[in-house]
C-alpha cells in the first residue's frame, strides 16, 4: 500500500498527479470528461468507479444507440402484460391471478474460457441474483452453450468444465435446469459462449426495485465477504498499477459459493415477506461501484458510504479494490432505521453476514469515506448512467455479397434412398444434432417439484402456483449461421424458433429476453451485424407482439484482431417466455401411443442455406437463410396453443435444425414409439424432392400427433384458420415391438439403430 490515501482534498491539491486511466481502459476524452464533471482530477477511488462503470460491459457505450430500437418498437398492446421493462435488473411480466414472473439471460463468456468450471458457475450465480433483486423467488435456470470444434483438444478441456460448472452451481442451489442449447462451431474456439437464463416468480405486491429512497434510510451490504476477486475481471482490462495499491496480485477468476447463494436466496425472501426491504440491488459486474451508484442515482437523494465497514476476506484490500471487487454472493439493501434490527435478526438466522455501510442523505452526491476521510464525492448519475455513448461506424462488409452468392445448390445431395438413410443417421449423430443427454443428465431437473417439461422437450415448463397449476414455458434459441448469412433475418429466425418452441409446448408466448454475443464493436462489419440483428429482432418482436423485457450484450467475442474473420458467428440468443393457465395441459414432444396420425404443419421450400445439413455434411456456410413469415409464425403458434387448450394433439415438436428428418428422429426416440411416414403427397403439394422434404430448414413448421378421435376437429380447425396441414404418417410400435422410423417405399431405420447413432456422439468425445 502506498502511504498517502488519495482523498478528494488531495486530488484537488494535486491536479497534475499522473493517473493510470489508460490501464483502466479509459480513453483520453473519457478521462477529460471525468475531470470536467468533477471540476478536478478524480481520486484513485473515483477513477476506479468511473472506469468500471464506463466500461463496455457496464455502460453499453457501443450498443446503447442500437438497443434504443427495442423501446421504439414496443406498442401500447405489448405493454399490457409488462410490469417492468428494459432498464431494471430484469423485466417483470404479469401472468395473471396476481402472479408475475421475471426472467433474463446473461453471458459469462470470457471467464468461462479462462476457468471453465468457475466461469460457468459464477455466470449462473450472477443471473440468479438479478432475479432475486426484483423481489422474486428464482424457480428455474437454462443455459445456452457454444463451443469450438467438437474434436479440438481445447474443447475437451472447456466442455466438461463448463457443464459441471453450470450443474455444480444450479444443482447445489436447488433450481431445476429446464432447457438450453449446446452448439459446436470452430468460430467459438478460444471464445466459448456461456449464456445463462434464470426465471423467478413473485406476487405483484412483492415487486422490489433497485433504488435508495428516503433520507436517513440505511444501506446494508449482506452475503459473502469482499475479497480481491475479479478485480479488473469482466469489467476492465486487468490492472495492478493503481498508485494507491501495492503490487498485490489479485485473482481475475472468481470462485462461486452456491451454498452461500442458496442461503442468501432464502434470507432475501424472508426479508421481502417480512416487509423489511425498501430497495434492493445485487452485486455483479463492477461490484460496489455499480450497486452504490445505481441505487443512489435511482433514489431521491444522495448516499454516504463508510467503505471501511465492508467485511473483508482479504484485509489488505485498498479502497479502490473494494469498490471494484466482483466477489460473488453479495446483495445490497436499503432499510429504514426502524427495521434494521429485525433485518439483522433475519440475516443472523441464516448465518449471513451483514454490515450497515451508510445511509441515504439529503445531498445530491454519492460520498464514500475511508476511515473518516472522503475518497469519493460524485454525482451518482454521472457514474451509473451518463457514461460515454459511441456512434460506432458500421458498414456492410464487402465479403457479404460473396458469402450470400455461395449458395448450397452446388453441394452434392443424397440421391438414392440408401444415401438418404445414411444421411439421416449421420445427421442424427452429428455434433449439433446428437443427443444432449450427456450434458443434461448432469443437471437436476426435478428439484422444487414443479417441472412439467424439461429437456429434451421443445420448451421447459414449470409450475408457478401449486393451487391453480398456473405456470410458464421457456425456450432459449440462437442460430449463429443464419445470423452470419443475414443478420436481420437470422436474429428474427432465432426469435421465431424460440417462440415456436414455446407455442409447441402449449404456452401463449408473452415476452422476450436476449443475449447478443458479437465480435469487436471496433470492426465496422461486426457493428453492422449487430445493428442489423437488433433491427431484425425489434421489428420481429413488434410483429409477434412480444416485447423484449431485458437482456445482455457481450461484445469483443473474438480471438484475433482481424475483424470479422476472427469474430465468433454473430450469435443472438433469444429466450421466449410463455404462460400456461394449467401446466398439466402442456404438450410434450414425443409420441407415446401407436395409431395416432402425424401431421406436418406449414410448407416446405428448398431452403438449405446455413442449414445443419450443409454444415455437417459439407462444412459449408453460404447463401441465404430460410425466409421468414411472421404472420404465419403467429398463426402456427395460435393453432398450437389452441390444440393444447382443446386437447386436440398428444404431442407437438417444432422443426428447426436438421429439418423434418431430425424432428421425426427426436419424437421417435423420446419414448421409443416409431412412425410410418409417406412423403409423396408432401412432395407433390410443395413441389420438392424427398431430400428437401427431409432436410430443408424452412421456418414456421411443426409436427403434431393427433388421436384418431380428434382428427376431424383438428383438420377442420386448421382449415378454418387457413394453416397448411398434411397428414404425413402414423405412429407405430411395429409388429413384434420392433419400432422404427419408416419412410414408406424409401427406407426404414430401427429405433435401436437410430438411438445408437443419436446417443453415442457426446459420450464418445467427453467420456
Amino acid at each position, binding site marked *: 500500500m502506498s502511504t498517502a490515501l488519495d482523498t478528494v482534498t488531495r486530488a484537488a491539491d494535486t491536479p497534475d498527479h499522473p493517473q493510470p486511466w489508460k490501464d483502466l481502459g479509459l480513453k483520453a476524452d473519457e478521462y477529460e470528461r471525468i475531470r470536467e464533471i468533477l471540476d478536478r482530477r478524480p481520486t484513485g477511488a473515483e477513477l476506479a468507479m468511473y472506469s468500471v462503470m464506463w466500461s463496455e460491459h457496464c455502460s453499453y457505450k457501443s450498443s446503447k444507440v442500437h438497443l434504443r430500437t427495442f423501446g421504439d418498437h414496443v406498442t401500447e398492446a405489448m405493454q399490457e402484460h409488462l410490469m417492468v421493462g428494459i432498464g431494471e435488473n430484469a423485466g417483470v411480466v404479469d401472468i395473471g391471478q396476481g402472479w408475475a414472473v421475471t426472467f433474463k439471460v446473461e453471458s459469462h463468456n470470457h471467464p468461462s474460457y479462462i476457468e471453465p468450471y468457475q466461469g460457468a458457475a459464477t455466470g449462473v450465480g450472477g443471473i440468479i441474483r438479478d432475479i432475486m433483486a426484483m423481489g422474486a423467488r428464482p424457480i428455474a435456470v437454462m443455459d445456452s452453450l457454444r463451443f469450438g470444434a467438437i474434436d479440438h483438444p481445447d474443447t475437451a478441456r472447456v466442455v466438461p468444465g463448463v457443464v459441471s460448472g453450470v450443474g455444480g452451481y444450479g444443482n*447445489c442451489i436447488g433450481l431445476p435446469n429446464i432447457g438450453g442449447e449446446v452448439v459446436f462451431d470452430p468460430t467459438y474456439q478460444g471464445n466459448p459462449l456461456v449464456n445463462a437464463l434464470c426465471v423467478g416468480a413473485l406476487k405483484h405486491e412483492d415487486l422490489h426495485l433497485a433504488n435508495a429512497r428516503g433520507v436517513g434510510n440505511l444501506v446494508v451490504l449482506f452475503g459473502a465477504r469482499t475479497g480481491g476477486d475479479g478485480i479488473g475481471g469482466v469489467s476492465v482490462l486487468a490492472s495492478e498499477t493503481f498508485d494507491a495499491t501495492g503490487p498485490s496480485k489479485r485473482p481475475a477468476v472468481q470462485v462461486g459459493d452456491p451454498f452461500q447463494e*442458496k442461503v442468501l436466496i432464502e434470507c432475501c425472501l424472508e426479508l421481502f415477506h417480512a416487509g423489511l426491504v425498501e430497495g434492493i440491488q445485487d452485486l455483479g459486474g463492477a461490484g460496489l461501484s455499480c450497486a452504490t451508484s445505481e441505487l443512489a442515482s435511482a433514489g431521491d437523494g444522495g448516499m454516504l458510504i463508510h467503505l471501511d465497514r465492508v467485511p473483508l476476506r482479504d484485509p489488505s484490500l485498498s479502497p479502490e479494490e473494494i469498490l471494484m471487487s466482483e466477489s460473488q454472493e453479495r446483495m445490497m439493501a436499503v432499510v429504514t432505521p426502524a427495521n434494521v434490527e429485525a433485518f439483522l435478526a433475519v440475516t443472523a438466522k441464516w448465518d449471513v453476514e451483514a454490515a450497515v455501510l451508510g445511509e441515504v442523505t439529503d445531498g445530491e452526491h454519492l460520498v464514500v469515506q475511508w476511515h473518516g476521510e472522503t475518497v469519493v464525492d460524485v454525482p451518482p448519475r454521472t457514474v451509473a448512467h451518463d457514461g460515454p455513448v459511441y456512434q460506432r461506424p458500421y458498414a456492410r462488409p464487402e465479403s457479404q455479397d460473396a458469402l450470400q452468392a455461395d449458395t448450397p445448390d452446388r453441394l452434392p445431395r443424397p440421391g438414392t434412398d440408401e444415401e438418404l438413410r445414411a444421411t439421416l443417421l449421420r445427421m442424427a449423430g452429428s455434433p449439433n444434432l446428437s443427443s444432449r443427454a450427456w450434458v443434461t*443428465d*448432469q443437471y437436476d431437473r*426435478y428439484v*422444487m*417439484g414443479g*417441472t*412439467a417439461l424439461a429437456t429434451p422437450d421443445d420448451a421447459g415448463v414449470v409450475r408457478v402456483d401449486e393451487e391453480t397449476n398456473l405456470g410458464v414455458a421457456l425456450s432459449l434459441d440462437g442460430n449463429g449461421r443464419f445470423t452470419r448469412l443475414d443478420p436481420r433475418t437470422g436474429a428474427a429466425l432465432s426469435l421465431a424458433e424460440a417462440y415456436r418452441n414455446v407455442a409447441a409446448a402449449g404456452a401463449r408466448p408473452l415476452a422476450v429476453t436476449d443475449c447478443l454475443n458479437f465480435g469487436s464493436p471496433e470492426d465496422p462489419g461486426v457493428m453492422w451485424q449487430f445493428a442489423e440483428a437488433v433491427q431484425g429482432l425489434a421489428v420481429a418482436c413488434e410483429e409477434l407482439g412480444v416485447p423484449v423485457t431485458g437482456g445482455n450484450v457481450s461484445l469483443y467475442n473474438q480471438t484475433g484482431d482481424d475483424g470479422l474473420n476472427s469474430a465468433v458467428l454473430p450469435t443472438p440468443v433469444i429466450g421466449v417466455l410463455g404462460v400456461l393457465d394449467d*401446466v398439466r395441459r402442456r404438450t410434450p414432444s414425443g409420441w407415446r401411443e401407436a395409431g395416432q396420425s402425424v401431421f406436418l404443419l406449414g410448407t416446405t421450400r428448398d431452403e438449405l442455406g446455413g442449414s445443419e445439413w450443409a454444415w455437417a455434411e459439407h462444412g459449408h456456410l453460404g447463401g441465404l437463410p430460410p425466409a421468414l413469415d411472421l404472420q404465419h409464425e403467429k398463426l402456427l403458434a395460435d393453432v398450437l396453443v389452441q390444440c393444447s387448450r382443446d386437447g386436440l394433439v398428444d404431442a407437438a415438436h417444432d422443426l428447426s435444425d436438421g429439418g423434418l428428418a431430425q424432428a421425426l428422429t427426436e419424437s421417435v426416440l423420446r419414448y421409443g414409439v416409431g412412425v410410418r411416414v409417406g412423403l409423396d403427397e408432401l412432395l407433390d403439394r410443395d413441389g420438392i424432392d424427398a431430400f428437401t422434404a427431409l432436410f430443408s430448414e424452412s421456418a414456421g413448421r411443426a409436427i403434431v400427433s393427433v388421436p384418431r378421435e380428434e382428427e376431424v376437429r383438428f383438420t377442420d380447425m386448421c382449415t378454418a384458420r387457413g394453416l397448411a396441414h398434411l397428414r404425413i404418417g402414423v405412429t407405430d410400435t411395429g409388429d413384434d415391438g420392433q419400432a422404427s422410423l419408416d419412410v414408406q417405399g424409401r427406407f426404414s431405420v430401427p429405433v435401436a439403430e437410430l438411438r445408437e447413432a443419436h446417443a453415442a456422439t457426446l459420450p464418445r468425445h467427453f467420456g
Partner: protein
Amino acid sequence: MKVGVVTFPGSLDDGDARRAVTLAGGEAVALWHADADLRGVDAVVLPGGFSYGDYLRCGAIARFAPVMSEVVRAAEGGMPVLGICNGFQVLCESHLLPGALVRNDHQKFVCTDQRLRVEQTGTAWTSSFTAGQEITIPLKNGEGGFVADAATLDRLEGEGRVVFRYLDGNPNGSLRDIAGISNERGNVVGLMPHPEHAVEELFGPGLDGLGLFTSVLSAGLGAIA
C-alpha cells in the same frame, strides 16, 4: 399423523418432501436444524439437498446440527426416520445407518429416472409395497456410491436390510447395486433416489414414490390403533 421434515442450511428438497407427506394424507411439519425440538412429530424425513454445500463430506456438518441429537434419540426409540439422498448421507455420518456414500464412480452428477427393486417390505417406510416390486423414481446426486466393508455388506444382506436395489445397470458404483438400506429395527431407512419427486402425475416419472410415505402413515395408524 405428523411427519416432520428437517430443513438444514442448503436443504433443497424439503418442500418436495412436505408436499409428498401431504399428498400421502399426512400432516407435514417443518423442523429447523437449529432447534433441538421435534415438535411432537411421529416420524421424521431428512430431505435431499446440499446441506452446508456438502463441502467437507456430504452430511458431515449437518450431522452435528442441534436437531440431530433429537432425531438420533427418537430413532433409537423406534421413531420412523427416512433419509433421502443428502438425508441418507446424514444418517450414515450420524451412524444411524452403516456404511458411507462416496463420489459416483464416473465422477459426474447424474439425474435420471431410475428403476429400483423393493427388496424389503418389512420396514416402516416400505410396508405398502409388494416384495420384489419394481418402481421408477428420480435419482440425482454426485456422491451416491454406497460403500461399506465386506462384513457389513454381508450382514446387511443376511439381515434383509438392503431395502432398495438398482436395476438396469449401476448408476454410481454402489457396492452390490445397493440403493437403500435400513437399521436392524427397520424404523430408519436411507436411500439415494428421490421418492418425493414421484408423487404427482406430470411432475415426475410417475407415482411410485408415494408408497414410502403411505407406508409410514399406515404404520403410524397401526401404532396409534
